[in-house]
């Protein structure tokens, strides 16, 4: 075991452990935060930092191999699907009528006069005729 492989081992374990730490933080935040909207934010900690660090650590464990390529591809997919899923969840909550609690002195940007009069369906898929 030479010095490089020890260094690689140490660094990859630091990355994996800190990734696990951020996943844990996300879980703690999901429990501690008071409502739906704030919990979404807590979950995105494990979605971003947790995933990036865990995948970097695992790729270092795998070395330059097919497994590292697979990890990179899975990571890239998660990088796109994670925020998309979060957005879909938040959007579904908004459309079904759940509103975030605004902090004191702030008002939501939603143009409320539009919600009554607008006849356009905001979720119509472009280019597909019903």
């Amino acid at each position, binding site marked *: 075991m030479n010095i490089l492989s020890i260094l690689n081992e140490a660094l990859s374990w630091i990355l994996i452990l800190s990734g696990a730490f951020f996943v844990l933080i996300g879980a703690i935040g999901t429990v501690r935060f*008071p409502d739906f909207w704030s919990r979404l934010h807590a979950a995105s*900690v494990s979605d*971003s*930092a947790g995933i990036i660090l865990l995948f970097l650590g695992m790729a270092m464990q795998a070395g330059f191999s097919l497994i590292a390529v697979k990890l990179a591809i899975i990571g890239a997919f998660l990088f796109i699907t994670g*925020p998309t899923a979060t957005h879909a969840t938040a959007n579904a909550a908004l459309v079904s009528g759940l509103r975030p609690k605004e902090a004191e002195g702030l008002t939501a940007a*939603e143009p409320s006069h539009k*919600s009554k009069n607008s006849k356009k*369906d905001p*979720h119509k898929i472009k280019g597909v005729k019903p």
Partner: protein
Amino acid sequence: MRSRTIHSVFHNLYLIEEYAAQGSGADLKRIITALAMMGLWLLMSGIYEPMLVGYGVVSVLLVSWVMARMDRVDGDLLHWHIKPFAFFKYQAWLMGEIAKANWVVTRNILSPNLHLRQHMFAVPVTAESDIAQVMFANSITLTPGTITIETEPGRFTEPGRFLVHALDYTDADPASIAEMDRRVVACETARAGEGAA
């Protein structure tokens, strides 16, 4: 019943033929896509026995057929109006932003009394192409502390604006999101709006 199934299969084959006849460019694209999918299969599987590679060939053919059918329905293509080098530069910058935002939210989660200042606000979007807008919206969601809630203009937002929810809103937030938008636009190729419409 059986003859109707056979008929519909033939009808679909006819549709594919008709689509392919529209131009040899579409043909070439399809072949390249199939080859890329086959390459991905070989890379992912790592087992090169005749049976498993055969499964790969069957899957690729099936997916190509389904894709051809879907193109007949809407022809909704992804236009990649992004400069590759600028894209990677942006990703590097985004990593830094994600790290900073993660640290802020982590400190918030671990602090004895949570500091929440939730706010829903609209941010202007100047990116033109679909892909750049998706990049922008996903970047906002990827940075902990902010989530894109609505992107389609309609009941909740006006055109050219995204609705964003912030966990701990500060007055600097709109400026930092505008900075992100500016950087996304810097990745776009010039006249990106033409193909996206």
